[in-house]
């Protein structure tokens, strides 16, 4: 360490101290109470808006709140069916070309007109400009070869290979306004000076991880919102959200823990809930020959038992989903037998989750060569999904009934993922969401293939050629009942083999106070002012 650095460190220390003592912060005093604005909608949200760049990370934490400012070409309704957004219609011109007709008379918050050029800018920014770590949206547009605009309200998109899901992908992409020159950087956007979209609200102010203020966009093309201003307060602690709602500090609070619903209702607020378009599951490593933590009852390592479908079926059969749903989720969940709640497009009516059958599970296990069961470590994240760490222990209780000794091991989400990526786990609890059934099957069950982009979440490396073929065929079919039927059949085939044990679809639960008339739930789980309708008149 050179002396110069030493001195500089000393200077730094002094600086830190002086900041601590409040010497540096001496701007003029301006104490002012916040005027209580009765017309303001106040929402306590669990989604901590981390950046104002709508293309930075594909996380609900960001997209939920930014959806007030920015809009998408295509929307999904409560049944996850596509409906027009900034695009009024779309059709395939050929296998690799799509045409989107854009909405007329849409203006950005700065008054400029929305045209095909802005769509082009958005795609280019995501595909070519944004540097890592911002890359969550890239996979949606990486297959796009060329964008052309025959007229200002028509976009023709050419893809490298057929992408039948392209309209669905555009239901995730926020359209930005092309600036006079160049591309906006994340840093520019985080200053808040250029958060300009077409959405029903305009940006007012933001403090990272704490607050977002919005004001109504009075020249919005669609139905105008009832709320002149909206303020989001980020409250990560569920108990604190519940408290804020029950004392009337906020009008709406999202992600209410199921166990707090009853006591919350007693204190006045009402509840809306819907089964989430997502699934939580147990996933097996079916590729390696031996697995960490998997031993026989005397503690000696054994060959990977999960390669045997009988073992996977036995464990699925011995899983008491009733306890998970009724006790851990306090009834605000649906037992799962496939990737989406029954009834959504692409799900199979033949797959339902029944009560555990320990006797049959035990005999399956005996047929697989494990009459006495075996030991394993069941890993999972803590605090990521409703009921995650508790589920590990409840599943261990169920499996113990057929002689399988599961030692639950919970870790913070990123630690869990680091360890899973390092191959330290044999069987684990996970969760995923997606725009549609095929998106989840594509990532979770299809054989891993970086070229085709399949199996990105198939960490257990399950391979089933018959399923892959069925899924590929289904994905080639145009949106509609035929496609949904094909997806349902592919799901049935895969679930008979049990590469994962679907556990539950937890419910999104939102509470709202007396100033709110109703709250319209959406299975994707965003929390928005648009879904909030005022009480009375």
């Amino acid at each position, binding site marked *: 360490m050179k002396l110069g650095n030493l001195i500089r460190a000393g200077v730094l*220390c002094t600086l830190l101290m002086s900041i*601590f003592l409040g010497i540096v*912060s001496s701007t003029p005093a301006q*104490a002012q109470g916040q005027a209580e604005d009765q017309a303001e909608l106040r929402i306590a949200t669990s989604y901590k808006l981390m950046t104002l760049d709508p293309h930075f990370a594909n996380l609900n934490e960001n997209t939920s709140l930014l959806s007030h400012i920015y809009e998408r070409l295509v929307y999904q309704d409560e049944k996850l069916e596509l409906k027009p957004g900034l695009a009024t219609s779309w059709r395939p011109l050929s296998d690799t070309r799509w045409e989107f007709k854009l909405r007329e008379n849409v203006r950005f918050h700065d008054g400029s007109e929305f045209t095909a050029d802005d769509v082009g800018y958005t795609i280019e920014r995501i595909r070519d400009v944004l540097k890592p*770590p911002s890359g969550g949206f890239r996979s949606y547009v990486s297959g796009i070869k060329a964008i052309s605009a025959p007229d200002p309200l028509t976009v023709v998109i050419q893809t490298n290979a057929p992408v039948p899901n392209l309209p669905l992908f555009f239901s995730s992409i926020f359209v930005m306004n092309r600036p006079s020159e160049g591309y906006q950087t994340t840093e520019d956007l985080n200053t808040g000076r250029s958060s300009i979209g077409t959405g029903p609200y305009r940006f007012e102010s933001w403090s990272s991880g704490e607050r977002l203020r919005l004001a109504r966009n009075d020249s919005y093309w669609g139905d105008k919102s009832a709320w002149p201003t909206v303020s989001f307060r980020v409250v990560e602690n569920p108990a604190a959200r519940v408290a804020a709602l029950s004392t009337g500090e906020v009008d709406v609070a999202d992600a209410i823990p199921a166990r707090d619903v009853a006591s919350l209702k007693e204190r006045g607020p009402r509840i809306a809930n819907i089964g989430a378009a997502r699934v939580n599951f147990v996933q097996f490593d079916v590729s390696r020959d031996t697995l960490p933590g998997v031993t026989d009852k005397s503690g000696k390592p054994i060959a990977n038992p999960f390669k045997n479908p009988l073992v996977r079926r036995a464990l699925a059969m011995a899983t008491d989903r009733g306890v998970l749903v009724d006790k851990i989720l306090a009834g605000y969940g649906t037992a799962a037998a496939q990737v989406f709640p029954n009834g959504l497009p692409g799900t199979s009516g033949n797959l339902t989750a029944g009560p555990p059958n320990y006797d049959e599970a035990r005999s399956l296990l005996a047929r697989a060569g494990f009459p006495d069961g075996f030991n394993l470590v069941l890993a999972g994240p803590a605090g990521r999904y409703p009921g995650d760490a508790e589920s590990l222990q409840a599943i261990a209780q169920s499996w113990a009934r057929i002689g399988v000794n599961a030692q639950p091991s919970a870790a913070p989400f990123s630690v869990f993922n680091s360890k899973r990526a390092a191959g330290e786990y044999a069987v684990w609890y996970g969760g995923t969401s997606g725009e549609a059934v095929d998106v989840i099957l594509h990532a979770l069950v299809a054989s891993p293939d970086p070229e085709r982009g399949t199996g990105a979440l198939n960490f257990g490396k399950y391979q089933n050629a018959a399923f892959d073929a069925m899924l590929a065929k289904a994905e080639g079919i145009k949106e509609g009942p035929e496609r949904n039927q094909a997806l349902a059949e592919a799901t049935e085939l895969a679930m008979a083999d049990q590469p994962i044990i679907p556990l539950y679809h937890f419910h999104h639960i939102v509470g709202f106070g007396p100033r709110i008339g109703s709250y319209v739930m959406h299975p994707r789980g965003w929390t928005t002012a648009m879904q909030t309708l005022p009480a009375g008149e």
Partner: protein
Amino acid sequence: MGMISVVTGRFLQAFLLLIAMSLIGFIGIHSVGNPVFNIVNIETATPEDIRRATVALGLDQPIWRQYLVFLDNVVSGNFGTSYIYHLPAFELVIAKLPATLELASVAMLIAAPFGTGLGLIAGRRRGTLLDRTVLRASVSALSIPSFWLAMMLILVGAILTGWFPSGGRGSTASFLGQDWSFLTANGLWHLVLPASALAIPNIALIARLSRSGTIEVENLDHTRFCRAKGLSPRRILLRHTLPNISVPIVTIIGLQFGGMLAFAVVVESIFSWPGVGKLLIDSIQLLDRPVVMATLTFIAVAFVALNALVDLFHAVLDPRVRLSSQR
């Protein structure tokens, strides 16, 4: 000369502390896991996205090189950008500081007069029932784990009676360019429970200290002399005893103020008080290394600075105490 060497000694000490702590914290968080999984959406990102994000954050480099880069940045006053919030880490810490500062200050404003008062009274009436009660209550209060005390305050003060909010900071008002809770009625209301949670152990500590100080002073000749002179006990207590025991009390207040910064970690987490302590725990959970490093550095510097201030105060107030470089 002596003064200078003391000051340089102090700086060297602080400097060593920071180096050691940063090294341990750095390696610790590195060994725990890869923060990239909190940044990209694992449910939609491809392995390629994850790899690229890791490279972009410099997390693919060997740990020693990452550390050197970190040191280099810190020397130019830059703790890096938060992985999660995409803001300069140090700015984040400073933004959370008013919340912690006002919490600790209010707690100390409660604890100091209460504790001193109880201690004085108990010391005066040494051996009485009152004295024994104060003594035992203080041992008990010091035995309550701070998190459980906080929870019980929530149970009694918020859930059973509904008197106070169970968490959060309430509305704030702007002063000196920062947001403060204590300037609004609603904010003060939110302060009551968390401040009590921090104050109660300190009341106990200060009470014990001032009790033993009082007993010691009361036995001194000058107090006996005062009594013999016929001064009223009250006057003796306030004009003679109190000033005599003030040095250790102020010392402990200074030291405990630093300790509060650390204990705020627990109390802030329970009351969802958006301060530095909660930021530290959240950032540890999210593996947000720049913020963890900035927060740890800040707490350490604040703690060392407070200790130095207390020593300085000692030297000014009590001529018998000489600053010595041998600590």
